[in-house]
């Protein structure tokens, strides 16, 4: 039996360290503040680039997302772990993806960015992470009481390639219709001329770094939601050690790069409405827990052929469109006009899913 080093304690700490340092460097090379990597934000930017929502400041086909899926696919194929499968309540996962994205956009970041915001000195991230833990804690209660989305089934090989091919399609579109100076639309793609969507590291750097992260994360099963879930559910700190490593190394890299600015007000792409930072992440954390993985993990699972994870990803992209079209997403000024209603509705739907999706007695 070949031992998988990356699944060991030191392996996952190493992977967390790599992601933390890579995120700080990606920010240095052009990605938005405390957003070297944010799975939710970057999927939202992709939704904008495709015109699914028309928030002009967040439109860009983020190569990081493409690289995450491709890197995981390469790892899975190399280690014979590519296993096309689907059929575990996909429509519920789609809805959970929508809600997870809406919750994340009320806070302004997924668990990855919550960690990176903390590592950049944004105090609001502490409140977001507490919300995340609370949401996952609720999810754990459902898990303990028999919550399940049911079994997957093996599916034809081609099914496992759907999300990887979609990502390849995005990359091809980006090469056919590259962004340029003072050009908000290139062919079918939208690009931001200002705001976070206009801030990005060079395409090949983003793609290359993300490929490595995707590869390492597939091997190590890195998951930011699982980190807290396993701690609460099993008192296991395996995944948590990777998550903490990410924060610590991103913090050290930020210090070295002059990107550490402690405080609450005026943080990049963040607001200071504590209650809604907390509540947004409660909803996102619960949705991730019910779906079995953080947004990054869903991309890595999709890369190894998990069609249900791919459906969750499409749910998140759809959720981004809904969040911006309906004024649910926050901005640095605070929550959107309907953000509070969205948090309440999202929480209610998650609770209904939690109570109703269970093993038949």
């Amino acid at each position, binding site marked *: *039996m070949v031992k*998988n080093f990356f*699944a060991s304690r030191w392996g996952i700490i190493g992977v967390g360290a790599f992601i933390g340092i890579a995120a700080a460097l990606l920010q240095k090379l052009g990605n938005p503040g405390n957003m070297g990597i944010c799975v939710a934000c970057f999927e939202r930017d992709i939704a904008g680039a495709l015109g699914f929502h028309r928030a002009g400041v967040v439109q860009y086909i983020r190569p990081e997302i493409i690289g995450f899926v491709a890197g995981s696919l390469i790892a899975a194929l190399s*280690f014979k*772990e590519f*296993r096309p*499968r689907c059929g*575990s309540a996909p429509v519920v996962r789609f809805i959970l993806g929508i809600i997870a994205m809406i919750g994340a956009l009320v806070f302004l970041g997924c668990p990855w960015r919550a960690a990176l915001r903390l590592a950049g000195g944004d105090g609001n991230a502490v409140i977001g992470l507490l919300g995340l833990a609370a949401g996952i804690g609720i999810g754990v209660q459902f*898990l*303990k009481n028999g919550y*399940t*989305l049911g*079994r*997957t*089934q*093996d599916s034809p090989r081609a099914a496992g390639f759907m999300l990887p091919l979609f990502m390849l399609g995005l990359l091809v579109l980006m090469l056919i219709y590259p962004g340029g100076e003072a050009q908000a639309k290139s062919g079918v793609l939208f690009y931001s001329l200002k705001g976070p969507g206009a801030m990005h590291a060079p395409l090949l750097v983003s793609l290359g770094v993300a490929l490595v992260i995707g590869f390492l994360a597939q091997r190590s*099963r890195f998951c930011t939601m*699982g980190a807290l*879930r*396993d701690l609460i*559910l*099993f008192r*296991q700190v*395996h995944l948590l050690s990777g998550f903490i490593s990410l924060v610590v190394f991103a913090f050290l890299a930020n210090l070295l790069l002059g990107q550490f600015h402690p405080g609450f007000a005026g943080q990049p792409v963040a607001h200071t409405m504590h209650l809604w930072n907390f509540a947004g992440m409660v909803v996102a954390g619960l949705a991730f827990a019910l779906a*079995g*993985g953080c947004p990054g993990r869903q991309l890595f699972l999709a890369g190894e052929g*998990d069609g*249900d994870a791919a459906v969750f990803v499409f749910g998140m992209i759809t959720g981004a469109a809904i969040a911006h079209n309906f004024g649910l997403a926050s901005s640095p000024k605070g929550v959107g006009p309907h953000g509070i209603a969205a948090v309440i509705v999202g929480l209610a739907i998650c609770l209904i899913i939690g109570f109703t999706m269970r093993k038949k007695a």
Partner: protein
Amino acid sequence: MSTTIDARGLSCPQPVLMTMDEIKKRTENEIIVVVDSEASKENVSRAAASQGCGVRKITQDGDEYRITIVRD
């Protein structure tokens, strides 16, 4: 005596939850857990070790793993 848990097609953390529940019941000395992913195999093995149980052997049949857990 042994008991078998079929955790095929279930995603994390359910195979681990089922294994832990069975370990806590303390009715059988040997528990066989059948999973169908490498990640579940690692997770179940890690969970067994954390409960003071040993993984006696793991046999592979195609995509499936049969993990034999025994109390130390």
